[in-house]
């Protein structure tokens, strides 16, 4: 069961090898992986929309979609047909090329990131030795299509949404990378495969999230990930109560659906990378196949994202920036120091030293940076 997909692929290649030359076989091996990803991405997105609507519905005490098929399982397909047959409206003054290109380009980074995710044992599509850097680099480019969309629409609300996206994505990228640094430091590798292998102790349960520094890093990384894919409570870019729908105000039909697809694929890949870095990836006790462990952990993180959306109100823009620069960034820097100390010392020194470092960084970052507030004066009337 564990290697079912790997066996399937090599079986197909064996059959093809009978009548194809060697070099064509290499091309086909690549093509099979690409096809699997190209199907997995959109299908994940389709069923994430259903999951989200069902879960949010349950949280708001209503059934959610339940008309198309049993429990609404055919709803995503009905939605797809609706989106494809809708009229495509382009504003008169819009910048035609950019307005058209933006939804096409935004799906590309979202799909490219799938290449380095270790879905299971021996199931990393491309085992890059700098896999994590690839993830960060490719996902950092996704701000530009969003900005193209907001600019190309020639709409004030869209432009406001676009400005918010850029500010938010640049700010949250910094703590996101720094939160992952302890993991990279201690595994000594940027390869997603090596990071998963480094968490294989204790019968597949030695996850980085179970150490103090790993837990802090996990929470910070996950929060930044939620902000990176513009999901609630960080969905200022499309805040429907303030700026209509933000950067995709002027999009309809399939173009709008492509933005939606990119957003859901991003939330999947961010959860997947978070699982890989901190929750042991596909590692787990042996009674379940490795890919099932991976999908279980990833979907629990996605469930938490939906839970956020059902529970938390939206941030204000200054709160959003303050959270990234004033809270998460100093915390990640302290976390790097503590992770190093925790790893290289032993016994009581480890615990006492780490606690001392936490207290010292708190004093240094919070107490010393407090703004001077004059003493409160009390005026009393003279008798």
């Amino acid at each position, binding site marked *: 069961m564990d290697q079912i997909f790997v066996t399937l692929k090599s079986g197909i290649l064996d059959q093809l090898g009978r009548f194809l030359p060697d070099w064509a076989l*290499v091309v086909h091996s690549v093509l099979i992986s690409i096809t699997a990803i190209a199907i997995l991405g959109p299908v994940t997105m389709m069923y994430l929309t259903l999951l989200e609507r069902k879960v949010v519905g349950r949280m708001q005490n209503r059934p959610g979609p339940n008309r198309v098929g049993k429990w609404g399982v055919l709803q995503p397909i009905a939605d797809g047909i609706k989106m494809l047959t809708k009229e495509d409206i382009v504003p008169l003054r819009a*910048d035609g090329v950019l307005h058209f290109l933006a939804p096409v380009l935004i799906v590309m980074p979202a799909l490219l990131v799938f290449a380095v995710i270790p879905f299971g044992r021996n199931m990393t599509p491309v085992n890059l030795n700098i896999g994590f850097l690839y993830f960060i680099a490719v996902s950092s480019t996704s*701000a*530009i299509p969003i*900005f193209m969309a907001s600019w190309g629409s020639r709409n004030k609300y869209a432009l406001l949404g676009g400005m918010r996206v*850029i500010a938010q994505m640049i700010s949250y*990228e910094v703590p996101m990378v720094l939160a992952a640094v302890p993991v990279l430091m201690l595994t*000594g590798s*940027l390869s997603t495969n090596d990071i998963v292998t480094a968490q294989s102790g204790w019968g597949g349960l030695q996850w980085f999230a179970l150490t103090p520094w790993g837990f802090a890093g996990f929470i910070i990384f996950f929060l930044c990930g939620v902000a990176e894919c513009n999901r609630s409570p960080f969905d200022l870019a499309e805040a429907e109560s303030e700026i209509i729908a933000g950067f995709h105000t002027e999009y309809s039909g399939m173009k709008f659906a492509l933005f939606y697809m990119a957003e859901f694929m991003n939330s999947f890949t961010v959860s997947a990378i978070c699982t890989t870095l901190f929750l042991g990836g596909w590692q787990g006790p042996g009674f379940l196949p490795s890919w099932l462990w991976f999908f279980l952990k990833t979907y629990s993180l996605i469930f938490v994202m939906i839970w956020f959306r059902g529970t938390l109100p939206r941030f204000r823009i200054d709160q959003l920036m303050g959270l990234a620069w004033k809270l998460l960034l100093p915390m990640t820097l302290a976390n790097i120091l503590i992770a190093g100390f925790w790893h290289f010392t032993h016994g009581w020194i480890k615990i006492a030293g780490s606690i001392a470092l936490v207290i010292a960084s708190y004093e240094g970052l919070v107490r010393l940076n407090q703004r001077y507030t004059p003493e409160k004066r009390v005026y009393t009337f003279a008798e």
Partner: protein
Amino acid sequence: MISEMQTGIQIGIYLVMALSVFAALAAVNLPNIFHAALAFIGTLLGIAGIFISLRADFLALAHILIYVGAVMTLVIFAIMLTQRLSDPNVRQHNNLSAPAFLGGLAFLTLMAKLIYTTPWPVKAAGTVPHVSVMDLGQALMTTYVFPFEVISVVLISALLGAIVIAKKDPL
């Protein structure tokens, strides 16, 4: 098998090079400055592609992360602050065109002279050494530790300068 793969890869490299040159020409010739910035992003991605073909994948990804992810975003922000940014009637030349052309020509001759006078050791294909991230890190911490520290000091002073400029109340 090897030769067919290699011709395929070579065609790919030439395509990427042609694309980046085309995007670079578009970046200087497009009348709309926002389109020009986007074309420049295309050039940067093409250069990253060339880095990958030279087996410098760390450099390629750092290039994308820093230039496309951060620098170009700042450039776009700066463009948002300019006036008349989508006016097609903006003149693309001013009276500094001739000095700029001369400067460009001088730089080009200098670069050409450097390129032609440098002896390039040519190795057989496939023997390009693969520099791993660990090699880079060790080189930065041992051989090149002094330049590395100087760059850190420069960056920190730039950061402090930005904070001083952005501070509301004077120090």
